[in-house]
């Protein structure tokens, strides 16, 4: 029983990290038709910036951690916004080139991060509470799992409210369905391109800080590893759907944890889930719908 609870909550924590990456991927693809292979780079930068600032402020203190979260998310948002403005926008409507640019950016940034922070993983520490466990139905669950889950739920709720109740959210939801018609209503849809990149980058940057707590280290490859599973989650959820991404994140990560523990084939499970969904529902669980 206790191992089931532990695997379940750990799986949810992993799913939370997937969602923080997949939410941005899904919105960006849904609105712009761009598969953003640089998204992992946004996460990794968030993780490194979080590591640096928490070290400066005090890695094991809550203020240090809070500043790391905020600046990690801001770093993710900044690099994402710059990528969109400088690399994606000049290639407007040239999707293949846009995707290739993101692939290039993903590769270059890994090399850059290795140049700055080295090729070895850097083990990190956070506030003592995060290293402790909480007993849930007899299982000793590491506290960083709860933090990741809480953050992902907050991001999901925040994004849904934003999409449902703001003018920009309305433009994004409409753009996911029919971008040309949005421009034909007199709306400059490119502004919302920068916006979804920025939002997605912030979520990824936050995910970077939380992932480094979850895994206990930072490395230049942190984002790339999560990105692969986040892509799977995005496709299973339905490209463009936020709630689909949330659902799929859980449906991928939890079985992945169980399969890893009992069979050691967690990654295979994720790929099989992808294959199954593509066969049965090629447009993903929720099709293309922003919220």
């Amino acid at each position, binding site marked *: 029983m206790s191992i089931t609870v532990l695997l379940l909550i750990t799986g949810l924590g992993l799913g939370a990290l997937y969602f923080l990456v997949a939410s941005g991927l899904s919105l960006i693809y849904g609105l712009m038709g761009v598969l953003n292979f640089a998204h992992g780079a946004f996460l990794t930068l968030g993780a490194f910036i979080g590591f640096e600032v928490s070290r400066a402020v005090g890695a094991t203190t809550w203020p240090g951690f809070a500043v790391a979260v905020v600046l990690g998310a801001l770093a993710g948002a900044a690099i994402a916004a710059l990528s969109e403005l400088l690399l994606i926008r000049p290639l407007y409507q040239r999707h293949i080139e846009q995707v290739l640019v993101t692939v290039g950016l993903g590769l270059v940034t890994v090399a850059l991060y290795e140049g700055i922070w080295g090729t070895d993983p850097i083990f990190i520490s956070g506030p003592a509470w995060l290293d402790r466990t909480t007993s849930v139905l007899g299982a000793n669950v590491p506290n960083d799992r709860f933090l990741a889950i809480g953050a992902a739920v907050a991001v999901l709720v925040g994004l849904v409210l934003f999409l449902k109740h703001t003018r920009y959210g309305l433009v994004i939801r409409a753009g996911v369905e029919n971008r040309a018609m949005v421009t034909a*209503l007199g709306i400059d849809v490119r502004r919302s391109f920068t916006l979804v990149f920025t939002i997605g980058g912030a979520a990824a940057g936050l995910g970077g800080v939380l992932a480094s707590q979850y895994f206990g280290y930072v490395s230049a490859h942190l984002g790339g590893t999560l990105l692969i599973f986040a892509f799977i989650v995005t496709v299973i959820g339905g490209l463009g759907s936020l709630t689909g991404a949330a659902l799929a994140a859980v449906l991928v990560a939890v079985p992945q944890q169980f399969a890893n523990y009992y069979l050691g084939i967690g990654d295979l499970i994720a790929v099989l889930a992808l294959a199954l969904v593509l066969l049965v529902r090629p447009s993903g669980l929720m099709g293309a*719908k922003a919220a």
Partner: protein
Amino acid sequence: MSAVLQVEHLSASIGGQQVVEDVSFSVPATGVTAVLGRNGVGKTSTIKAILGLVERSGTVLLDGEPIDREPTHRIVQRGVGYVPEDREVFTALTVEENLRLAVRDREPRRELVEALFPDLVRRSAQRAGTLSGGQQQMLSMARALLNRNRLLLVDEPTKGLAPKIVTELATALQEAARTVPVLLVEQNLQVIEQLAQDVVVIDGGRVVHTGPAAELLGDEAAVRRYLGVHAEQPPTARRSDDDAPGAQPPTARAAEEARP
């Protein structure tokens, strides 16, 4: 009379293939100008080229100012309302959200739209994807009528709709046309007769005829030549994607389909 829109040597291509060859015509500052032509001759592409929704070259002047190098949203912001073929409402959004998205004016003409389409008021919280074809068309037209435009581009608003809805839409258009010039793509000759003062006939990606609507409709041979249909042809039964199938006035489309 001055023209609100002048189109000169406009050509357009989709996916590298030229679909509008060399189109020139102008739209007077008042009334309805109808664009006619058989299926696939490039009517929709011409409208889309004016709006910059497809790759285009040539000259397009709105009130004398060139708009042929502007992006679509700027052209629309200059006061061009667009009612696309196949409605293109946002199905995942509610009726109200569709309308709110379309508002550009500081004081949108809500009362006008609500008076023309009371059905939309009742259904404001309904998802547009669950509306009937006729209701979606009304929503699409309402989006364009909310703002005070200098020109409306309306592409086959009656396509596939039941006669009762066609009448309702034609009346709404007639009402709208009293305050804004309209460029209307339409295959329903009765609607053209009711609304249009001028016609532009397109064939093979080029303009083959322009002139007063009454003159063309009165010339049976010309109608037959350009559209492949008799103006006086008896109503043909035609399937409709709206609530009730029923008798339809003759259309170029129906005639095309009926041809051996």
